[in-house]
């Protein structure tokens, strides 16, 4: 049994499909973040899911999908400022990483600056 089941949680959706659970989180959260399957929350729960795996923030509550092989997918909500902060930090890192990649690519694509208008049109 995962530590999540021993915490104080709310069940927002029960025994549904993963797709419906994802849509619920997307429609009912103030903020939505997407993580990879295997994203770790709390002490020992690794998120099970079909990418893109949505996680939501609603006030102090973090909404996430919880999958049990014989019972389907649940949408759980647990109050955790710490986990919400980690989600936001994770998103920030993802954006910074993509900006760095984009920056390097843009630099590589740009080449030397054109010396004249004619040269610019040739490009």
């Amino acid at each position, binding site marked *: 049994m995962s530590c999540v089941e021993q915490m104080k949680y709310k069940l927002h959706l029960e025994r549904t499909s993963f797709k419906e659970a994802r849509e619920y989180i997307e429609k009912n959260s103030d903020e939505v973040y997407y993580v990879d399957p295997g994203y770790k929350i709390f002490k020992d729960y690794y998120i099970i899911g079909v990418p893109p795996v949505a996680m939501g923030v609603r006030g102090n509550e973090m909404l996430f999908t919880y999958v049990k092989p014989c019972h*389907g997918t649940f949408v759980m909500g647990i109050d955790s400022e710490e986990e919400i902060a980690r989600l936001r930090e994770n998103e920030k890192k993802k954006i910074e990483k993509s900006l760095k990649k984009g920056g390097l690519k843009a630099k590589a694509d740009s080449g030397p600056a054109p010396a004249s208008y004619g040269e610019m049109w040739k490009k």
Partner: protein
Amino acid sequence: MLVMGCPEVPVQMSMVIYLTHKLKKSGWDVTVAGTDAAVKLLKVADPESYYVQKTVDLDELIGDVVEKKVDFDVCFAFMHSDAGMTYAATFSAISKAKLYAVVFGKNAEALGESIDYPAEKIVAKATHNPNPLKNKIDKVIL
């Protein structure tokens, strides 16, 4: 690696034992993962571990693969429900193993079509009779 889904459909346990035996005869080192209930069913059916020597809890295995403590060359993920399909998607994302999605049960065809992650699909509408699934598994060349 063989990943069992919910054990409520009878053909799964039969095919897990069959496939483990077949793979071992071909020289593979096989581990079977499942829920507590699925592993118990397997151990009762094979009390002296003649067919299956290594079993592991499904959620523990996912943690170990994510933490890069373990990985496999090939993964057969058994599924007959949306939850099973979701577990297999997770393995597709976290593991480097070549993934075979073994889809069975009443809604096998629709479930098979819903798989949109990299996996070789083995689909048979089998619930009680394992032969349609066995015949398809026999065609897989490793």
